C-alpha cells in the first residue's frame, strides 16, 4: 500500500532533492532531510509524504492552519512519535528506531507549544538539565563530592549563565522557573534547548503570547542565535511578521500535506497558500 503511494507523489510536492536551501549552505551537508515522512493514527493520515531539506545554518518556517499537522511533524522529527512511513536523516544519519533521548543526542532540540519547563526547579537548574549530557560525572562522584564534581559543577554553572545571557536572563538564575512571566518562560525554554548543543533547533510557536515589541526582540535573537552557534532553526509560528521576516525557506502544511515550499515572497503570492491559510486581502 505504502509502496504504491511512494511512487505517486502529488503534483504539488517537489522531489526531495529540490530544497530551498540558502546559497551559503549549498556546499555543506544538510542538517535535516526527510523523505516521504508520514504517520497514521488508526487510519487517519496526520502527516503524509513530508519531504524537506534544511541547510546547515538555515532558518526555516513551518506554517499552516490549525490541525494541519505542524506539531506532529515536530513530534516525528524528535521521535516522540515513530513514523509509519518514510525516513528522517539527521546530520546524514537515519533515525529509524531511535527514541527521543537518542535523537536529542544526535543533535535535535526543541521547545514546546504549551510550555514544559521544570517548574519547581530554578532557572539555572533548568538550563543545567539541558547541559546534562555534556557534563560527565556519575552518581558516586556526585554523592561523595569527588574533585570532578566541584570542577564540573563550576564549569556547568558558568556555561549556564553564559547561555542565559543570550536573553539577558542571568539575573534570574536563582528564581523558580514556574514563577517567571510568560515571555521569560518561553525564552528560558529556548535557552534550555540550546544548552543541549543541538545542530537543529525546533521552536514550536516561540512568539505565542508575546507583544509586538517582544516579538521584534525575539526575531533579532533568533538570528543572533543562528549566527553565534551556526545552527539550523526550524519554527512553527502563526505570527506572519515573524515568519516572513526571518525565515529563508517556508513550508506550508495543510491536512498533513505540504502544499507549498519557497521563499517568503513566493509563499505570499502563492494562490494555493492564500486559499488555504493566508486569506485574501480586502479589496476596496
Amino acid at each position, binding site marked *: 500500500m505504502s509502496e504504491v503511494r511512494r511512487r505517486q507523489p502529488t503534483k504539488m510536492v517537489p522531489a526531495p532533492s529540490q530544497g530551498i536551501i540558502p546559497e551559503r549552505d549549498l556546499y555543506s551537508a544538510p542538517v535535516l532531510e526527510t523523505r516521504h515522512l508520514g504517520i497514521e493514527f488508526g487510519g487517519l493520515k496526520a502527516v503524509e509524504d513530508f519531504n524537506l531539506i534544511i541547510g546547515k545554518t538555515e532558518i526555516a518556517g513551518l506554517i499552516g492552519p490549525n490541525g494541519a499537522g505542524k506539531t506532529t511533524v515536530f513530534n516525528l522529527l*524528535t521521535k*516522540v512519535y515513530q513514523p509509519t512511513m518514510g525516513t528522517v536523516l539527521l546530520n546524514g544519519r537515519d533515525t529509524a528506531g531511535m*527514541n*527521543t*533521548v537518542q535523537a*536529542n*543526542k544526535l543533535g535535535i*532540540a*526543541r521547545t*514546546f507549544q504549551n510550555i*514544559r*519547563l*521544570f*517548574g*519547581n*526547579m*530554578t532557572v*539555572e*537548574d533548568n538550563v*543545567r*538539565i*539541558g547541559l*546534562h*549530557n555534556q*557534563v560527565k*560525572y*556519575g*552518581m558516586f*562522584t*556526585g*554523592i*561523595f*563530592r569527588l574533585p570532578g*564534581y566541584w570542577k*564540573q*559543577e*563550576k564549569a*556547568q*554553572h558558568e556555561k549556564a549563565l553564559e547561555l542565559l545571557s543570550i536573553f539577558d536572563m542571568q539575573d534570574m*538564575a*536563582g*528564581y*523558580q522557573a514556574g514563577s517567571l512571566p510568560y515571555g521569560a518562560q518561553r525564552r528560558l525554554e529556548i535557552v*534550555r*534547548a540550546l*544548552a*543541549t548543543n543541538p545542530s537543529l533547533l525546533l521552536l514550536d510557536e516561540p512568539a505565542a503570547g508575546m507583544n509586538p515589541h517582544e516579538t521584534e526582540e525575539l526575531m533579532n535573537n533568533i538570528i543572533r542565535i543562528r549566527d553565534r552557534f551556526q545552527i539550523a532553526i526550524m519554527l512553527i509560528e502563526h505570527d506572519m511578521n515573524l515568519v516572513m521576516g526571518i525565515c529563508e525557506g517556508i513550508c506550508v502544511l495543510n491536512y498533513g500535506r505540504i502544499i507549498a515550499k519557497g521563499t517568503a515572497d513566493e509563499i505570499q503570492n502563492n494562490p494555493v497558500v492564500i486559499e488555504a491559510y493566508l486569506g485574501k486581502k480586502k479589496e476596496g
Partner: protein
Amino acid sequence: MKLKKSTVNALISYGIVIVAFIVCQYLIASKAMPRTLKGQMIPICVYIVMAVSLNLVVGISGELSLGHAGFMSIGAFTGAIASTWLLNALGLESALARLIISIVAGGVMAGVFGVLIGIPVLRLRGDYLAIVTLAFGEIIRNVVNCLYFSVDGMRLNISFNNPNLAGTIIVNGPAGTKGIKAISTFPVGFALIIFTLFVVLNLVNSRSGRAIMATRDNRIAAEAMGINVTKYKMMAFVTSAVLAGMAGALYGLNFSTFTAAKFKFDTSILVLVFVVLGGIGNIWGSIIAAALLTILPELLRAFADYRMLIYAIVLILVMLATNNPMLRSVFDRLLRVFRRRSPGAEMKGGAAQ
C-alpha cells in the same frame, strides 16, 4: 553562589542532627530520659532513615511506592543472618564491626532486590506503579515467611518450607529469627541518619539529582533534553531501597527475635504517613514527622485503650493544620526568617501525582 548556599543548608542540617544526638546522649547518660523513651531511640533512627529514603522516591522522583517495608524486611533478615554468621562461623567478636558489616550487607541485598523489582515496576507510572509496589512488598513478606536459614560451621543452609536443617537455626519461617544477639546501638543509628542525609542531600544537588527532579517535573521535556528517564527513576528507587535495607538491618539487630509479619503493609503506610505529614519532598519534615510520630504512641501509653484513637486524631489535626492557608502563611513567614527565600527550591513542593 547557589552551590555554596545548598552546601550551607546541608551543613546546618547535619549540625541540627548532631546537636539533637548530643542532647539525647546527655539525657541518657544523666538518666533523665524515661526508660520507655530510651527504648525508642533506635526505632526512631530507623524510621527517620526509612522516611528520608522513601521521600527520595515519593518526593524527589515523584513516584508513589507502597512497598518500602519490603526492602526493610530484606535488610533486617540479611542483617540478622550476616551478624550471626560472622559470629558463629568467623568468630568476629566485635559487636560494632558485626553491626556495621550487617548494615552494609542489608543495604546491598535490598539494593539487589531494588534493581530486580525496579525493572518491571518502573515501566509503570502513577497509580499502577503504586499498586505493583504494594504487591511486591506483600510478596517479599510472604516469601520470607516461608524461609528457613541455619548456620552449620562455615556453611549457610537455606530452605523453603522445610524446617529440618542441619546446624543452628537462625531464621525459623513464620516464627521469625531466633537467637540473634541484639547489637544495635543508638550512636550507630545516629551515624546511619547522617549517612542517609549525606547521600540524599548530595544526590539531590548533583547532576543525577537534577535529572531525577526533571523527570518528576516533566517527563516529556526531560526526554527531549536527552535524559534517560528510566535510568534516573531506577537510580532513585534503588538508592532508596539500599537505605531502607540499612535501616532494616539496624531495626532487626535491635531485637533478639522478630518475624516477617513486622514488615507488612501497615509499616509501608506508616512510613508514607511520615513522608506526607512532613511534606512531600521536604527532607526536614520527614525527619521531624518520623521522630514525633514514633514517640507519640509511647507517650500516649498512659491513655491505654484510647491511645490509637488519640494518635489518629493528632494525625487528622496535623493534616488540617498543614492545609490551612492561614497557618501555612504564618509557617512560611517563620521559615523565611530562617533562610531568606533560598533558591534551593529543590526540597520544596514535590509533585507526586
